[in-house]
């Protein structure tokens, strides 16, 4: 007979207008196990966990903790029951210190009024040491790395005495080294008697860390299996519902002449801190160059410099033999640069504009979209209709606001717009972030098609698998410099990870 599970979800059903997010889902979490919840974006994992954490109420079904039925009607109640959540989008106040973020809501105080910072800091320090977090309790969140911020999130739950930890897509933003450190931490937590639910869509992690896997598709449990009795291929098939290939199909690249040449580009911010430190690389016609690196090593700045959004202090950027450094975004766009920005919502789209208006966001002023100063709606709508069809953007109509499209369709709309510009040089920054498997395949195929049509493509991504699968050549950036260049077929995660951490070994050109 099995031991009583620490948490048991029984036939949980949750409906939102128009969809059933969770359809009679049952899951058992045993003490001391790491139980992975596998599913695509939108499969219903997060909804389920938000129910467990008291943010949503189930329409049907109930939850048992240590064998007793409980009603979790608020995060407070969940915390009381020893359930803690490490959110995917960290819920941290940027301007607060590590300690302040951890104690918020449960502050040690003198007489209930004044915060006892001394005790608080000591407590945080002690917890941090216990699990080997090596974190400075007095640092501000905005000053520490993403990996460290995640540890703060974990400490928040431990500080509240959580025994059951929910990790929501914890590795999405981490480097390979940080990921292996996180896995160490998770093992340590389990060894100390904690139980973990790990939400993810990454098979590699599941295989390396979990004990049990439950696969969810379209709100339903497909299966629950022991990790050591399954394979990545079986899991992938169950997650997507069909056979999936891990390798992207592509022919070998046939690079032509140089389209873009970045030479010794340096950029300082307002405070005088160097962000790009003599960056040098080039991209040729017909190849995809992947940029690997830990977030914050100059990727954002080089993209901004390439698209005219940031002034460069020295160096040169040459496109098709012509200098474009410090030109305006519009001049650069007109000389043949397309840009799929990292942040769709903030930079890629005007969410309150219609799909149709977003399609001409960069070309609205040209003929035939503008005639004698007036917008030509017939031409604009024709274009939008054509692009929506060609790129399979699912939208009720071209007059629908971009805001109400799904993430995948928003990204398709941006890609349609950028590719339609027929640029010689296409920058794709994190083009598949947050998309489901189908949309990821679509985006990557589009990038390869562009390459095959003789375009130069620069791909910046924090997903190493994507860099390895899609690129023809990989440059590794570290502290604003290119410190190495490798071929995807000649390298692997470990080597890339070391280079990304600043080690030059394996670099051929540095």
């Amino acid at each position, binding site marked *: 007979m099995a031991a009583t599970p620490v948490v048991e979800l029984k036939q949980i059903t949750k409906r939102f207008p128009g969809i059933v997010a969770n359809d009679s889902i049952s899951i058992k979490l045993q003490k001391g196990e790491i139980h992975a919840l596998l599913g695509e974006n939108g499969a219903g994992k997060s909804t389920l966990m938000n129910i467990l954490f008291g943010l949503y109420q189930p329409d049907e079904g109930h939850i048992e903790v240590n064998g007793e039925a409980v009603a979790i009607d608020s995060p407070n109640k969940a915390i009381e029951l020893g359930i803690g959540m490490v959110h995917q989008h960290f819920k941290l106040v940027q301007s607060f210190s590590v300690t302040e973020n951890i104690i918020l809501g449960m502050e040690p105080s003198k007489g209930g009024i004044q915060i006892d910072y001394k005790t608080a800091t000591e407590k945080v320090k002690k917890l941090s040491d216990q699990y080997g977090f090596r974190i400075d309790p007095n640092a501000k969140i905005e000053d520490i790395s993403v990996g460290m911020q995640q540890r703060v999130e974990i400490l928040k739950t431990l500080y509240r005495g959580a025994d059951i930890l929910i990790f929501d897509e914890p590795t999405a933003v981490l480097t390979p080294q940080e990921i292996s450190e996180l896995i160490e931490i998770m093992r340590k937590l389990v060894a100390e008697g904690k139980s973990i639910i790990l939400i993810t869509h990454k098979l590699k992690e599941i295989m390396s860390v979990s004990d049990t896997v439950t696969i969810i598709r379209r709100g339903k449990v497909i299966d629950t299996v022991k990790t050591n009795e399954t394979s990545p291929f079986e899991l992938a098939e169950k997650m997507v519902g069909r056979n999936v290939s891990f390798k992207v199909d592509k022919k070998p690249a046939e690079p032509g002449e140089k389209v873009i040449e970045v030479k010794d580009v340096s950029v300082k911010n307002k405070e005088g801190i160097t962000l790009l430190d003599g960056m040098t690389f080039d991209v040729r016609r017909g190849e995809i160059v992947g940029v690997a690196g830990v977030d914050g090593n100059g990727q954002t700045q080089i993209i901004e410099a390439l698209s005219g959004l940031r002034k460069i202090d020295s160096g040169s950027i040459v496109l098709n033999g012509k200098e474009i450094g410090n030109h*305006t975004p519009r001049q650069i766009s007109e000389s043949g640069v397309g*840009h799929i920005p990292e942040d769709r919502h*903030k930079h890629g789209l005007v969410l309150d504009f219609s799909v149709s208006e977003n399609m001409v966001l960069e070309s609205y002023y040209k003929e035939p979209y503008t005639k004698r100063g007036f917008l030509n709606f017939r031409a604009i709508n024709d274009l939008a209709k054509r692009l929506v069809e060609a790129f399979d953007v699912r939208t009720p109509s071209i007059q629908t606001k971009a805001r109400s499209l799904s993430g995948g369709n928003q990204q398709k709309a941006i890609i349609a717009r950028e590719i339609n510009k027929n640029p010689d040089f296409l920058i794709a920054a994190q083009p598949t972030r947050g998309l489901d498997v189908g949309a990821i395949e679509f985006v990557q195929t589009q990038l390869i098609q562009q390459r095959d049509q003789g375009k130069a493509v620069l791909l910046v991504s924090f997903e190493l698998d994507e860099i390895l699968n899609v690129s023809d050549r990989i440059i590794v950036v570290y502290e604003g410099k290119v410190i190495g260049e490798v071929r995807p077929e000649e390298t692997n995660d470990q080597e890339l990870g070391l280079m990304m951490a600043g080690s030059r070994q394996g670099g051929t050109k540095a």
Partner: protein
Amino acid sequence: MNKFLKWFASDSFIVSLAAIVMGLLLGAVVMMIGGYNPITAYGALISRVFGDWYGFGEALREMTPLVLTGLAVAFAFRAGMFNIGAEGQVLMGMTGASLIGIKITGLPALIHAPLAIIAGALFGGLWAALAGYIKAKRGVNEVITTIMLNWTALFLCNYIVRTFLLMPGNQRSVDIQPSASISIDWLSQMMGNARVHWGILLAMLASTFFYYFLWKTKQGFELRAVGSNPEAARYAGINVSKNIVKAMFISGVFAGLAGAFETLGVFHYQSVYSSLPGYGFNGIAVALLGMTHPFGVLAGAGLFGSLTYGSAGMSFDAGVPPEIIQIVIGSIIFFIAAQGIVRFILKPVYKRKKEKVL
């Protein structure tokens, strides 16, 4: 036509209408608490506005600056800015029109009046563009700068009137040249000397211009993109700074016109003001009543103008303090803004409607 009918049945129209009714009802309640008869009071208000041609003409006169300052606030709003400075821009507009209207002589009316109007529009536009420029170049919040520029404009305009235009012994300028007047004398005579002027027509044209410019032109597309998501606009190659200054300039032109029309069409001189006259603040209310849509602003100014103008009749005939109207207008805006409250109150009505359908 079908589209028109649909709009009347639309949710936002019903909610706005309900907000107006609730505001008037609330005003009635407040009147009853004060011991006044709301029916007599509202009756007096309506007959003041619609009772004779004079009242109607004067109500139109009252509406005109409201339309324009409402457009000024709404336009800046659409470009992502809160222009609290319509107040100062109106004063600058008055001054620009007065300078040209008084100092230049010997021009035919067909040239003189338009010239004075243009001067007023430019003065207002440049004054607002200054706040836009400071925001674009130095990142200073336009709310503070426009507040400060209101007071600066007040004293600057008073200085100009006192120094260059003063009618000796009075706190006002001399009269403008007759050739700069935009009063419609024949109509005015027909309407019992109500101070009607060409500005009324031009204000309506201005709201049409607003509509076409913002939604049908290339430049409007840019302004809306900047207003809705400045970062995305910058990524798309739109010059955000330039558009901020441009939006404020156009916003200020609307306000400047309001001032110019008051001088050239209504008073024919410019007063020395002891404090801010309030055109711009009322403009904020009108813009909000009209949900920052140019035609909504027209309707909002109509409502605001008739209520304010009519309130004088109310206090004269029914003895009700005219301040009640501010309470009414305030609560109408409140109900439009907090639609949740209106829907909450309308709920039983909606339910019944649905049941009938079933």
